[in-house]
């Protein structure tokens, strides 16, 4: 149970532990890694979106001066058509390998085909142009609804639709169908006074991390493979590389360097196995870096989707039924996040009658990867727009209708489970009382919109070791790569337990040989689960230190009590010693103290957010300006409020980009025409106001301090909130993302 108490460290805002290295340019990211004798690798990518590989001739490249080795799919072990259960989920091994280096077919423009190691990156790049690949070009399928049609070109001849374990007879681009059902939707719609049904389309968008993927690999003479890289999870890199190369996990060490953003996009491996293959072939360490176009075209974006939402309500605003159809583009191989989309779409509401159908569909685009609350934003754009329309038609305040139907503890989610203690209502009430929401909003072409969002969060495995130092500090060893200040949020939880300042903890993120298994930094789990492991490790230290105090005082361990950083004796003896002083006496009381904590918690506790946005629409150009933005979110308990705010602000702004301008633009042949930061238009600081992040704290019963994951849910509401604000401004419902100026002009009938 969450403790209801005053904290000394939790809730404060110390300087992050890795801060100085990061503001002085000393922190070493993956691409910064240097090593004597390093070769540079470069990947040749397919110019076609869909083609059969007839032949690959690498001889001219191999003969080019400076080239030390060339690899293709031939260099990978034969991939079995079997499912491997990896840290990032179940994956068909053949699909996984084919996405690293295509064997028989290329399935998207940018699909890796071969790779070169050379003495300089420029030579490697030049040599790639000397690899002769003969293709039989096939027609591509680039859109989810087209891919679902019976006569659509097939990406995989052996792929058949599965529905909860049952496979269909005929091959299809539809990899799977899922369904959730609650109550009797037909009856629910019959009870409604008003029913709104709309179609929504969202484009392919990228996580847009600023640091491209990178990997340096080296094989020692004894067969030990070491990979230095930027990743969200060193252990999942180890597992994926082991499966792809059919190499024992015990012979692979992954060293996580600092990581320049991930947002879900740095879980799947791309060039890490390639670097390893090149290292093996050349006998030298090989560094492979992607450029920005490689990142857009060769790594997983998040799916484009087609979403249909139907909701019914009585005239006093009670939602009686809801129906959703979600078709998500998986990209070249199955695995779109339609499951999470289906799980989250109606989660802010308590609705008795619900049916949700979800489809995972392959198309000739890069295999999609997670991106911040994967699947939920696509779904919420639809549902939160429809709720807004119902509120408007019934003349009910949009926050009021959400409060009226808001999900509470004990309500059943559409996918079945019952909500534990959640903060949905609290975020709505906070938003409603916020000065932003109560401020006047009347100017011409200005509009205000609101939307809510849900993300379930995950737990998974984490390990932490604590070594106690004689000066009263501790070294905290963890395996969660730090993307946004989690060294500190984890360290602070250990500090709280031990009654020491945050600054007395030295957190280190270490390699896979040096800490227990730790799952990815993803699913908003790090502060929750690795923080939980740190709490457990600190408890272990506390127990062991109590034993030392007992030894010192010659009393039973039961007679030692610990509070506010002081051990005291509760058995008559007037003994007292601070944590710090006791640290200096470990040698004489039995030697070093090492604490450890491992967890695999199930009670991650879902997070809710409600956003309020004001926009101005230029009616002549269709351009939308964000005037004011307020994001309210339940954090359970904010360990380091500054970095919680940062997550909320960053997620909201990624949502703003998704809402207004970000999308992969394809030509008919399946080439992305805007694969650069110039034309893939992420928000700059000039496009934004300050983002008011408001933290609500409804403690999560599944964490000792009440923590809920905070990273993902803030990207869920923005698209619908902005669409609703645009409607408020100009009276037009936008149902396609992004809501770019040309689409607004069209919707307004100006072009």
């Amino acid at each position, binding site marked *: 149970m969450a403790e209801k108490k005053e904290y000394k460290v939790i809730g404060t805002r110390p300087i992050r532990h890795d801060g100085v290295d990061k503001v002085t340019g000393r922190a070493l990211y993956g691409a910064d890694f240097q090593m004597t004798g390093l070769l540079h690798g470069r990947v040749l990518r397919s110019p076609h979106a869909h083609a059969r590989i007839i032949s690959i001739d690498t001889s001219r490249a191999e003969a080019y001066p400076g080239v030390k080795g060339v690899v293709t799919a031939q260099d990978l072990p034969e991939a079995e058509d079997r499912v491997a259960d990896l840290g990032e989920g179940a994956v068909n091994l053949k699909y996984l390998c084919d996405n690293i280096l295509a064997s028989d077919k290329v399935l998207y423009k940018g699909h890796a085909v071969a790779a070169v190691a050379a003495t300089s990156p420029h030579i490697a790049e030049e040599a790639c142009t000397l690899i002769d690949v003969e293709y039989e070009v096939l027609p591509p399928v680039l859109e989810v609804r087209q891919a679902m049609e019976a006569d659509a070109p097939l990406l995989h001849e052996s792929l058949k639709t599965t529905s909860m374990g049952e496979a269909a007879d005929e091959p299809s681009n539809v990899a799977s169908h899922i369904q959730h059902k609650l109550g009797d939707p037909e009856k629910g719609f019959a009870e409604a006074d008003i029913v709104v049904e709309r179609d929504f389309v969202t484009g392919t968008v990228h996580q847009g991390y600023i640091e491209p993927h990178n990997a340096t690999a080296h094989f020692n003479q004894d067969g030990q493979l070491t990979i230095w890289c930027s990743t969200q999870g060193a252990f999942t890199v180890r597992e994926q590389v082991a499966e792809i190369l059919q190499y024992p996990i015990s012979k692979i060490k992954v060293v996580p360097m600092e990581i320049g953003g991930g947002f879900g996009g740095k879980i799947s491996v791309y060039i890490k196995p390639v670097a390893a293959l090149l290292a093996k072939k050349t006998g030298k360490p090989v560094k492979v870096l992607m450029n920005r176009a490689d990142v857009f075209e060769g790594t997983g974006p998040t799916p484009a989707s087609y979403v249909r939402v139907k909701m019914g309500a009585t005239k006093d605003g009670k939602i009686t039924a809801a129906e959703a159809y979600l078709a998500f583009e998986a990209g070249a191989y199955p695995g779109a996040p339609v499951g999470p989309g289906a799980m989250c779409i109606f989660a802010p509401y308590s609705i008795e009658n619900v049916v949700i159908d979800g489809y995972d569909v392959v198309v000739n685009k890069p295999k999609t990867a997670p991106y911040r609350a994967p*699947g939920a934003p696509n779904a919420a754009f639809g549902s939160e727009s429809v709720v807004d329309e119902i509120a408007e038609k019934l003349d009910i305040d949009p926050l009021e209708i959400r409060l009226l139907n808001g999900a509470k503890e004990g309500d059943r989610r559409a996918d079945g489970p019952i909500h534990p203690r959640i903060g949905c209502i609290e975020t709505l009430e906070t938003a409603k009382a916020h000065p932003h929401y109560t401020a006047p909003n009347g100017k011409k072409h200005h509009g205000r919109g609101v939307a809510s969002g849900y993300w379930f969060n995950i737990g998974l495995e984490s390990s932490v070791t604590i070594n106690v130092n004689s000066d009263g500090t501790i070294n905290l060893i963890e395996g969660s790569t730090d993307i946004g200040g989690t060294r500190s949020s984890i360290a602070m939880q250990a500090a709280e337990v031990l009654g020491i300042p945050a600054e007395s903890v030295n957190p280190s993120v270490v390699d896979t040989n040096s800490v227990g298994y730790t799952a990815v930094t993803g699913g908003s789990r790090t502060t929750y689960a690795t923080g939980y492991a740190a709490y457990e490790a600190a408890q272990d230290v506390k127990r062991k230190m109590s034993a030392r105090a007992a030894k010192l005082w010659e009393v039973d361990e039961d007679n030692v009590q610990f509070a506010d950083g002081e051990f005291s004796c509760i058995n008559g003896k007037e003994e007292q010693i601070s944590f710090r002083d006791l640290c200096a006496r470990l040698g004489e009381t039995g030697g070093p103290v090492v604490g450890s904590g491992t967890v695999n918690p199930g009670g991650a506790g879902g997070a809710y957010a409600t956003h309020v946005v004001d926009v101005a629409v230029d009616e002549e150009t269709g351009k939308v300006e964000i005037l004011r933005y307020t994001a309210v979110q339940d954090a359970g308990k904010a360990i380091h409020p500054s970095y919680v705010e940062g997550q909320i602000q960053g997620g909201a702004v990624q949502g703003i980009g998704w809402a207004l301008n970000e999308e992969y633009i394809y030509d008919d042949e399946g080439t992305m025409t805007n694969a650069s930061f110039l034309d893939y238009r992420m928000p700059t600081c000039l496009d934004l106001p300050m983002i008011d992040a408001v933290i609500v704290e409804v403690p999560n019963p599944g964490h000792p301090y009440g923590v809920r994951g905070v990273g993902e849910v803030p990207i869920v509401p923005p698209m619908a909130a902005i669409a609703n604000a645009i409607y408020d401004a100009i009276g037009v419902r936008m149902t396609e993302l992004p809501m770019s100026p040309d689409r607004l002009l069209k919707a307004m009938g100006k072009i």
Partner: protein
Amino acid sequence: MPTVVIPPLMRKFTGGEENITLPGATVREVIDNLESRYPGIKERLCEEDRLKPGIAIYINGLLTRGSFLERVDTDAEIHFLPAIGGGVAEPSH
């Protein structure tokens, strides 16, 4: 006795029945009892001695590690749901 909530796409095994109450102290026992009442259903959920990839178990609303050894209370509610793919969940350890 624990209650198993049958997913909509599998209710043809149970004649449309959504909630099935069955004896069992572990996930394994519950599944075995489900199979003896509705033959064929286990094959849809399991592969050898583990859950099929793509399917997850929730006990009382919490995602479990998918282990058949997981204990269930007498009043537990068990859901079989599509595993959350896309890199965010589906544990393996």
